[in-house]
């Protein structure tokens, strides 16, 4: 698939306007759904397309929708997760700012599938511009009769509201997000019940990522079979946005079918590692997934291939580190993030992340002891799978994998009583002249 879907209008600032969108076939998919399909047919098509969630866990979208009880007389809600807060991830921001109607059309189709008349876009507070673009896009779509009351004369109503977050990573987690939307602290809920049964306002709720939903117009314009034909196999289908950050020559946002080879992405599309340096490590799917060594990166970036080598596709945010990177320092940086963002409900995560920060700080400063290696591993293992939400796992996985794969470097810090790496903290802006 050379044809781009998300990035086809990359160089055209008009792409966010409804005139442009409609002129290029926009809202046709929504119209065809509204006029000719039943909710069950929509769910069936999405199942057939193989679309899996792009927010991190890769759960099949059609299946998630089918869990919403049809006999419930409570209203149904859809939340589009636009919190985009996983370090290394910057794909949803592009869709929000540049293709807002693709996203709204997707929200509309998903809402119809679960019989929802009130949808929310939960957008991180920092995306002030993005929230403004969405507000304007919603107003445009309502003015054209694509959203709002009695849409396209079919009697179907759908209100979409932009709900701004307020600077908490945990509100990206779906049940934390639901609590936050209800006007509470973003404290994740125990599951079950799953949101599809009891979500926001005590009602059945579907939470889907921005990119997941933005795929829907493609599925209903070109057909489930077309979509299913994109990607390496029937379980990994559709176009995908890949975020690459760190020490490559051309960091940025890329689009390929699911299953892009990571080695190729780094060395061909991103131009390789910056001159004079070598690759040391890659975190392939956002900061929460296990790290890879250079010899492991000849891998297909899809859900199952990355899982097969013990990592995850996650949010497809590849963070590339070269030989000037101290991995103790990098892990410390990440654990500081998780310690700060732990919501504090569960003891293993609240206390464990803090202890990991303490241990890593002393190793980095040259005050570590050899026992610290096992201690760190033990703390991480005692967080993993022992918390209400997967933030605990997200904090534990980097630690366990860094220790497992780069133990030598940690031990060298301890033996030498200091950091052995020639760190390069200078400002590096590869595209400064662009």
């Amino acid at each position: 698939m050379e044809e781009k879907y998300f990035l086809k209008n990359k160089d055209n600032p008009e792409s966010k306007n409804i005139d442009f969108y409609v002129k290029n076939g926009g809202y046709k998919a929504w119209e065809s759904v509204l006029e000719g399909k039943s909710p069950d047919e929509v769910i069936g098509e999405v199942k057939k397309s193989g679309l899996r969630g792009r927010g991190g866990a890769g759960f099949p979208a059609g299946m998630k929708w089918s869990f919403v009880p049809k006999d419930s007389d409570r209203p149904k809600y859809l939340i589009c997760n636009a919190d985009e807060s996983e370090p290394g991830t910057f794909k949803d921001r592009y869709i929000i700012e540049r293709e807002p109607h693709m996203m709204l059309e997707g929200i509309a189709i998903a809402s119809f599938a679960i019989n929802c008349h009130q949808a929310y876009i939960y957008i991180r507070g920092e995306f002030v511009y993005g929230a403004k673009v969405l507000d304007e896009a919603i107003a445009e779509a309502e003015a054209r009769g694509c959203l709002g009351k009695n849409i396209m004369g079919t009697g179907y109503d759908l209100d979409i509201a932009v709900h701004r977050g307020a600077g908490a990573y945990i509100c990206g987690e779906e049940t934390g997000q639901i609590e936050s939307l209800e006007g509470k602290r973003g404290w994740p809920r125990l599951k079950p019940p799953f949101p599809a049964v009891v979500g926001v306002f005590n009602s059945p709720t579907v939470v889907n990522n921005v990119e997941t939903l933005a795929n829907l117009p493609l599925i209903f314009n070109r057909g489930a079979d077309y979509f299913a034909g994109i990607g390496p196999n029937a379980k990994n289908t559709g176009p995908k946005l890949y975020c690459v950050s760190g020490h490559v020559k051309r960091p940025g946002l890329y689009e390929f079918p699911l299953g892009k080879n990571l080695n190729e992405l780094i060395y061909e599309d991103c131009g390789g590692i910056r001159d004079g340096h070598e690759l040391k490590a890659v975190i392939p799917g956002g900061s929460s997934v296990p790290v890879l060594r250079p010899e492991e990166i000849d891998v297909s970036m899809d859900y199952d291939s990355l899982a097969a080598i013990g990592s995850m596709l996650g949010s497809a945010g590849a963070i590339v580190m070269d030989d000037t990177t101290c991995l103790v320092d990098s892990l410390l940086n990440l654990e500081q993030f998780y310690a700060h963002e732990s919501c504090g409900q569960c003891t293993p995560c609240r206390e464990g992340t803090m202890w990991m920060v303490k241990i890593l700080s002393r190793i980095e400063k040259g005050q570590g002891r050899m026992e610290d290696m096992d201690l760190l591993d033990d703390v991480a293992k005692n967080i993993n799978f022992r918390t209400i939400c997967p933030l605990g796992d997200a904090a534990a996985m980097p630690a366990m994998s860094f220790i497992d794969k780069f133990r030598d470097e940690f031990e060298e810090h301890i033996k030498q009583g200091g950091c052995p790496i020639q760190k390069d903290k200078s400002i590096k802006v590869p595209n400064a002249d662009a």
Partner: protein
Amino acid sequence: MAIEFSEEAQKEYEEICKHYPDKDATLLPALHLAKREFKTATPEVMEYIASLVGVDPIKVLNVASFYTWYPKEKEGKYVIQVCSTLSCSLMGAETVVDYIEKKLDIKAGETTADGKFTLKKVECLGSCGTAPVMQINDDYFESLTEGKVDQILDDLK
């Protein structure tokens, strides 16, 4: 009551209420408006929001204190938030922070004596491909260099 939303903000708040079946859910949106209107989440502001939303003041405090977006103390006219998470750190975020600290003669977490700038280190801003990144009030500034920082800060009146 001593403080109140402007008429415009009150209208906006009424519009917001229409989207929610439960008024409690308007607490975060109300706090966003409060930040725009009053800048700081003082006890007085929180009491006002409580009466507006129809919840106890303690709930507003409890919720507002969970989120980093609502400042509890007075901040500078321009709040500079430099991302310090991994991707930005790899591209030189620490150097950016050091540079701004020297330039403004304050440490991260502080406000300049004239009340113009507050400098903060924050976590991933979702813009890692154009690191290093900072946000000043509502706006993002990406692919930062020392020269760019000079230009941006010097342009702020």
